[in-house]
């Protein structure tokens, strides 16, 4: 992606409304902060442009956006305990009272699904963020410094790359505690190397660019160069890797919960599947019980995957469809 020029942009390229914010910062930090902000606004504007011009990104972000809204507002609107149990006959097919029927404990599947959205998305994005922080730090530091630091970090990355996530997670969860937190930590620890490798390669190629040399010779501290100069230029790769890891992490957490290594006092899509499988939903032909949680995971995952491939297409013009829409004029000016 032609992102490289966005960081060293002079502050004049920043749109009018952004300038007061940049000016209010400390004077000696002002220039880099403004550059950083200008990079961010350029990226935000471009993302918006991309979301509206690229069909994949548009569909993907609407699906993900819908589920995020459900996760935030759904439980507020329903406001019932998803584990609420009323005595009576168990498994019932969908009806007007229970939109997705009930399970064997007479709990409403629809309510569980809405509450599950919140838990599942929260942990998927939180763990995805954790993965991102580790892979960005390791990748950028190792790529920027090179030498011994790079050698050590690369070996660590390669070692973690071959350690399989699921079996390790199961053993770790068993030894420590059966909480989503343990699951999240283990999944994060086994999923960061891929992103770190990609970012390291990118940083390596960016280390020799003029704007980096310029800031180094102007006496910038290394961590500042890494996170304020180089990092904004890799934002598209970072975004793509966040999206992919979020899918993987969501699947890994749900898989563990399906195996019964989740927290049974909370409701998530994974624990719903665990309950359904272990209470014989298949034999009772209760499709409304085991089908919806998996479908939701697949939909969110498809939304994220669409976003990811959309970002890929934006970054690599060769992947784009042949009929290409025109980019808005404003963006060309910003990118020039």
């Amino acid at each position, binding site marked *: 992606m032609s992102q490289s020029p966005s960081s060293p942009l002079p502050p004049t390229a920043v749109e009018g409304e952004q300038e007061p914010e940049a000016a209010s910062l400390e004077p000696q930090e002002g220039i880099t902060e403004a550059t950083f902000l200008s990079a961010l606004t350029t990226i935000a504007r471009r993302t918006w442009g991309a979301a509206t011009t690229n069909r994949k990104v548009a569909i993907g972000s609407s699906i993900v956006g819908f589920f995020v809204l459900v996760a935030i507002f759904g439980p507020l609107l329903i406001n019932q305990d998803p584990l609420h149990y009323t005595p009576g006959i168990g498994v019932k097919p969908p009806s007007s009272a229970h939109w997705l029927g009930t399970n064997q404990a007479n709990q409403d599947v629809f309510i569980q699904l809405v509450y599950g959205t919140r838990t599942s998305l929260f942990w998927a994005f939180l763990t995805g963020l954790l993965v991102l922080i580790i892979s960005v730090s390791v990748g950028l530091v190792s790529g920027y410094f090179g030498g011994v630091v790079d050698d050590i970090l690369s070996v660590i990355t*390669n070692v973690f790359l071959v350690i399989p996530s*699921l079996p*390790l997670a199961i053993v770790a969860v068993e030894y420590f505690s059966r909480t989503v937190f343990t699951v999240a930590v283990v999944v994060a620890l086994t999923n960061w190397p891929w992103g770190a490798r990609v970012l390291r390669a990118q940083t390596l190629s960016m280390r020799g660019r003029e704007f980096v040399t310029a800031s180094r010779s102007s006496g910038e501290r290394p961590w500042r160069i890494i996170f304020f100069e180089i990092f904004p230029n890799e934002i598209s790769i970072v975004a793509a890797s966040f999206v992919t890891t979020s899918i993987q992490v969501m699947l890994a957490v*749900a898989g563990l919960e399906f195996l019964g290594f989740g927290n049974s006092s909370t409701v998530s899509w994974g624990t719903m599947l665990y309950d359904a499988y272990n209470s014989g939903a298949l*034999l009772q032909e209760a499709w409304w019980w085991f089908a919806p949680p*998996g479908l939701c995971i697949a939909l969110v995952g498809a939304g994220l995957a669409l976003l990811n*491939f959309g970002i890929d297409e934006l970054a690599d013009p060769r992947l784009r469809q042949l009929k290409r829409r025109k980019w808005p004029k404003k963006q060309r000016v910003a990118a020039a």
Partner: protein
Amino acid sequence: MRHLIRRLGIYLLAIWAAVSINFFLPRLAPGNPAEVVFFRLSQQGSVSPATLKALEIEFGVNTTDPLWVQYFAYLNNLLHGNLGVSIQYFPSTVTEVISQNIRWTLILLSVSVLMSFALGSLIGVFLAWRRGSAFDSLLSSMMMFLYSILYPWLALLAVYFIGFKLNWFPYADGYDTNLIPDWNWDFILSAAYHAILPALTIVISTIAGWMLTMRNTMITTLSEDYIMMAKAKGLTTRRVIFAYAARNAILPSITGFAIALGSVVGGSLLVERVFSYPGIGNALFLGIQAKDYALADGILLLVIVATVLMNLIVDLLYAVLDPRVRQERSA
């Protein structure tokens, strides 16, 4: 050559790291396996404190030896292939339990993963060649959905619709349990018949990744100058696609293949759980449930070593496929 030696070093380090994780994980965690088993036994009836002592010796925990002595004793045991005794299948050793289960996992997974890789990459090549066609956009968007499907859910659907409702294929166990496991035709046919549904679900859930990766790298490769040159020379389409474009486009997929193999070996856990299939994934799950830590640790170690070995094989393959690797270029 130096590249390969470097990789070999990394793999040895990975195995060492895995072994160390295996050693320290149980010791970092609150409680120890001996106490867990002791607690379980004491619920079934009174047991003397001497039993706890015996269990501690059996598991090699809480001894007066310093940690590093225990660590080297553990390494020494491993080097002699001694993984300890399984509680669940007492008095069988962990090695025996693993060797009984491993072939099921190996056969099922290697066949289905290879099938998925070959088929997915082939379709990916085709989609890239016919880019923008109705077929391409339909299949690409379908794959996007498949790409992020939760495997156990897919397996449950397969069990429910194909196995339970239609009753086309058996959906539990690795073979007809009326038969005695032996190398005769009846048994082999029964095992193959039972493997169809699990294999099908593995292929469906993993094929999308190969297809999309191959499609995208293939599209990038197709716009290279040497492809244009190949076309201009008047080579047949088949030759341009396979000998020129696909041969180069497959390389990133192969790297992905190595990494996927690791997650797939781990994923056998989910496959074997849903289909109650005999194999190390199921053995690990049951072992954890029965607090059979020696078995669980042994299997974890095996899975990691297997992943490392597969990575090594792929590295060797890479050197054959990509001349640039042979000519001294470390990753």
